[in-house]
């Protein structure tokens, strides 16, 4: 049991090193986190390893509900009561960095180009030549498919192109009308819809913003092609798009043959003894030989400008992104943010048991995140309804035009 060992190590280190550390003047850094059980366990192990290596730094881990929209941290910053370190995600990093609330880690020895971290994830933390945090989570999107369902339909490989995705969806659909026994393809949650669209947009060579970020342009040729694919999928009775909770369960139990999802599936399968065999495959591309690419979502740990222990906090954040720390995440079935993690012992043990996890890890080389922009949230909010409209049967052109108008309005507000 890796976690048990680490816990023992933690106990040993606190008992043995405490007196020595006392003489050396210990720094305590406050670390807020609101992780799930899975991530929390990884984090506990990482902190234990960090404290063992840095006897002069103590980490006070405070369980914090961030609220769905970061109300907790935003108000803490406004009242000068922010912690030293916390996770951050979505557009908040750029917004906070833009307002000078985050510490630029280049002052503490982080290189502006970091070879130890996947470029896709590292891209998230760079802003105006600074590095405002380091990634801790990088979750690629891929196709999860039920192997039994694939065998029953005579399929061996996941779809490689969007045409195949549509074709397979039809082939994998069992039943019709009010009696669909098995859906061919599933996609769920409003955020996922937008990510799927952005993934397709990137795959067709498109971008959300123009070069200098002054305008949203996702209604260009690539956007329309992406919208067209979604529209065609939505027309299939065997595609359940905009499904809610429970999609992972559905694919693990053959209610849906394949879904567009991320590495959460492994933990789900771990906790469901009755789950069926599943495989994972790359996100399809427009053409057979296209350079593969997928969307990845990212989270980073940041040090706040209000911190009194910036140096120790920076040390902590740097450690958390290292292969040595990241292997504990892989042990908890999430890919690591650093390519070097593949050689770490804990990670290799996990890969051995979960070959799909290694596939997911390797997909990170070709993962790209959402565009960095200090107005990203309002643009994202314009993309979601557009995709929902397309699924609802609206013409992609008009849905995307309306969304681009809405997004540009928000951009003009600044």
């Amino acid at each position, binding site marked *: 049991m890796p976690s048990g060992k680490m816990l023992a190590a933690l106990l040993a280190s606190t008992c043995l090193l405490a007196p020595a550390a006392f003489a050396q003047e210990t720094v305590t850094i406050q670390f807020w986190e*609101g*992780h*799930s*059980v*899975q*991530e*929390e366990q990884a984090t506990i192990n990482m902190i234990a390893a960090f404290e063992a290596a840095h006897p002069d730094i103590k980490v006070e881990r*405070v*369980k914090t*509900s961030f*609220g769905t929209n970061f*109300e*907790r941290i935003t*108000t803490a910053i*406004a*009242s000068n*009561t922010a912690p030293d370190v916390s996770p951050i*995600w979505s557009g908040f990093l750029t917004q906070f960095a833009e307002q000078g609330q985050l510490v630029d880690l280049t002052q503490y020895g982080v290189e502006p180009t970091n070879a130890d971290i996947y470029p896709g994830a590292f891209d998230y933390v760079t802003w105006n030549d600074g590095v405002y945090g380091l990634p801790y989570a990088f979750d690629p999107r891929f196709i999860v498919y039920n192997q039994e369902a694939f065998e029953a339909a005579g399929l061996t490989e996941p779809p490689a192109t969007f045409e195949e995705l549509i074709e397979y969806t039809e082939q994998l659909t069992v039943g019709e009308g009010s009696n669909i026994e098995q859906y061919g393809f599933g996609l769920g949650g409003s955020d996922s819809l937008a990510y799927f669209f952005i993934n397709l947009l990137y795959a067709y060579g498109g971008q959300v913003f123009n070069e200098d970020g002054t305008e949203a342009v996702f209604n260009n040729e690539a956007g329309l092609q992406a919208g067209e694919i979604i529209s065609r999928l939505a027309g299939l009775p065997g595609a359940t798009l905009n499904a809610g*909770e*429970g999609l992972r*369960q*559905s694919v*693990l*139990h053959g*209610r849906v043959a394949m879904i567009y999802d991320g590495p*959460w599936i492994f933990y*789900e399968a771990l*906790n*469901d*003894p*009755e*789950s069926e065999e599943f495989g994972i495959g790359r996100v399809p591309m427009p053409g057979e030989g296209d350079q593969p690419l997928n969307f990845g979502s990212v*989270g980073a740990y940041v040090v706040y400008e209000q911190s009194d222990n910036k140096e120790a906090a920076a040390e902590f954040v740097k450690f958390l992104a290292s292969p040595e720390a990241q292997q504990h995440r892989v042990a908890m079935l999430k890919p690591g943010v650093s390519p070097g993690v593949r050689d770490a012992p804990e990670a290799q043990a996990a890969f051995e048991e979960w070959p799909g996890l290694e596939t997911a890890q390797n997909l990170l080389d070709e993962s790209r995140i959402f565009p960095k922009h200090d107005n990203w949230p309002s643009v994202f909010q314009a993309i979601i309804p557009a995709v929902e409209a397309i699924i609802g049967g609206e013409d992609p052109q008009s849905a995307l035009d309306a969304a681009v108008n809405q997004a540009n309005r928000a951009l003009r507000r600044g």
Partner: protein
Amino acid sequence: MTVVIMQPDRPVPTAAIDRSRRRFWRAVLTFYLPATIVAAVMLFPLFWMVSISLRTNAEIFSYPPDLVSIPLRWQNYIDIWTDPRMNLGIQAWNTLVYATVRTFLQLLLSSMAAFILARYSFPGRTLVFYLVLATVMIPDEVMMVPLFLMVKSVPLAGGNDIFGMGGTGWLDTFYGLILPGVVSGYSIFFLRQFFLTLPKELEEAARIDGCSEFGIYWRVALPMSMPALIALGIFSFQFAWSDFTWPLIISGSERTRTIQLGLGLLSTTDGTDWAMLLTGAVISTLPLIALFMLLQRFIVTGVNFGVGK
């Protein structure tokens, strides 16, 4: 239900039996039957909630939907007490303190203002009432940020100087959690509406009997409005019990963390632990149900110790 006790040696007049039978069937048709049908509809989602709290996460999304999933997973109700993300015992205590103190202060302060607004006539009374009412028309979601900054700047609290600078004020304290919300336009409005219905004669009779003005409030108006006070008390307690956003930004540590915040920790960017969340939801609802069961009869019979009877 009316129970008719048959005593064989002393025959009950048939007319009486008929009457009580008729009364019984009338009660069934006009009350028990419709009430049970409505109850089934109201209860069904809650039954589902309990049923799901007795499953593993994997069983929640089973298809076809099962009414109950055997074996029942009572383990959830044990695990929740030791879940590292929640500290249910402390959180329940914190929530109890928050809800109880808030409720009593709210009842006291609101009934004072409502009494004057309903029973005394003075120039500007209607205007004051409208202004009080208007305070509930800005959504809490925007009030939160200024209110939060005020709580942080309470002078001479939490390391603050006389100008409210330098410390954290009432952040992460019960003062900050409770005090800003104890007077609300809703509660004053609510009690005013009830005080308005008290007969004027009563007040005058009390005055003639030599009752002081305070006595009229304390010994006439309050007891006679018991149903309303109990109802408001239940609302206020329940509001505090289920409040999420205000405790979220005010509470900074286990010291003031409430149950709802504990439940909030189960819902993360990496997904939600539904089984634990529902188990916690069921447990956290039990005190409220008990409270309502205990107090509902005062809403219905409270008027008895007034004059209505």
